[in-house]
């Protein structure tokens, strides 16, 4: 007779615990790379309102630390990135349940503001969960028995500043650059600049936006392994900071903390470019979960 799947069940609880912890941790304690980028921005900014904004952000992060409060009230939409090893002994369907249950538990226990609503009726659907919520990006890794989970609570102010353009091949890379610049200037102060500009290029329309979201999840200032794409990241980062939009759109030298690009090969007739903005409170927190259920939390991943 088959034994009940006790190992899987314990492991499911471990993943749920990790998700519950990551969600609250991400909301309260922003990573060191982001703290460093904001401190550098504060040094560099010369406009009076811009300096006022960056000084207030600095005070806010310190208050969040000392009061153990959330950095931002927008607990966001819970987005996870799950990298699943081929031999991790819990099926992704159960990993999804664990991420959902952990999100709900954290929301109820803290308590966190619940933002999830039915997209037509606008009625609340539960503790930051609902139909197809949370959202999980999946990667599968051969010859490995671990699971990496990253939680990226995504605020709506920045998510509302998402843009897609199906450039044509004749627009070339120039078309990509112009669209990113025009998008960030048009967004102005609404997405809480200075933040991370995530850009997805290639693939299809939907995949370009998916890649743009992947881009904002990366540690700040990391570069795409493809040197052509990395060069584009550097160039756009420089150009975006020449627009003068400044902190909270009040004018200044620092419009973005960085620009990350993810790419995919595409059809010869396609040249999609997607922009997904991550606000200055670019919250993320990660954990490595071993096959035996042990959890290593990782502040910097």
């Amino acid at each position, binding site marked *: 007779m088959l034994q009940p799947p006790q190992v899987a069940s314990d492991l499911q609880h471990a993943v749920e615990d990790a998700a519950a912890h990551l969600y609250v941790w991400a909301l309260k304690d922003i990573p060191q790379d982001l703290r460093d980028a904001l401190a550098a921005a504060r040094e560099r900014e010369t406009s009076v309102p811009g300096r006022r904004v960056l000084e207030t952000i600095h005070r*806010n992060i310190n208050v969040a630390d000392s009061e153990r409060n959330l950095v931002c*009230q927008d607990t966001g939409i819970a987005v996870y990135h799950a990298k699943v090893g081929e031999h991790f002994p819990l099926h992704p369907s159960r990993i999804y349940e664990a991420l959902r249950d952990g999100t709900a538990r954290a929301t109820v226990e803290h308590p966190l503001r619940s933002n999830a609503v039915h997209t037509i009726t606008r009625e609340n659907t539960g503790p930051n969960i609902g139909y197809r919520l949370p959202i999980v990006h999946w990667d599968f890794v051969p010859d490995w028995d671990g699971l990496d989970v990253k939680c990226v609570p995504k605020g709506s102010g920045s998510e509302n500043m998402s843009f897609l353009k199906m450039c044509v091949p004749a627009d070339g890379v120039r078309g990509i650059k112009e669209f990113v610049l025009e998008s960030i*200037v048009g967004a102005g102060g609404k997405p809480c600049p200075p933040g991370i500009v995530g850009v997805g290029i290639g693939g299809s329309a939907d995949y370009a936006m998916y890649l743009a979201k992947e881009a904002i999840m990366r540690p700040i200032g990391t570069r795409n392994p493809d040197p052509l794409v990395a060069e584009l990241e550097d160039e756009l980062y420089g150009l975006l900071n020449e627009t003068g939009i400044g902190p909270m759109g009040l004018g200044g030298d620092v419009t973005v903390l960085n620009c990350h690009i993810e790419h995919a090969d595409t059809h010869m007739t396609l040249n999609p470019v997607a922009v997904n903005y991550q606000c200055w409170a670019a919250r993320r927190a990660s954990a490595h979960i071993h096959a035996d259920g042990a959890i290593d939390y990782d502040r910097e991943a």
Partner: protein
Amino acid sequence: MATHEVTFPITDEQEILKLRAGDEVVVQGHIIGIRDRTQIRIFDQGVEPPMDLRGAFLLHTAPGVRKRDDGGYDKVCIGTTTSARMVRFTEPLGAQYGVRAICGKGGFPDEAIEPMHRLGMVYFAIVGGAAALETTQIEEIEEVAWEELMPECLWKFRVKDFGPLTVGIDAHGNSLYHDVQARAQDKLKELYARL
């Protein structure tokens, strides 16, 4: 750029007229929390708000709160949302209810400049996302109306040293957002030429 301390609700309109775009402001007194659904109820559904809004400072918020056994609310985390979605309510808030200041993040588009000029209103820019700090500056949640819209109710907060805020749009027809956007559009032409 001057620094001011202003107590709300205001009774003397000179308090508003002395503020200029770019100035720094710290607020004392009482402020009213309001959001999309609150204003949809007032203006689209025609329901009179059960709070006096004359001279008021409105904050675009949906606070995170904890309900007490006595029916009141304790603050958990109170921050500010994007204002641009609610710009169309500016004129009626000023003309019908005497609201004098609207505070939010990200700014109002240019359509707010004319009514704010005509009616003697200002837009205050807060730092979006800086909710941990903002929460410490809210001393107490004194009143809540329309709890069924939770968290988009009408909230009355008592504040101390609320800010620093930046005057984004003043009552004299000036908007930092308009100026920054106009300069950025010119800059874009220059950047495109370099690509």
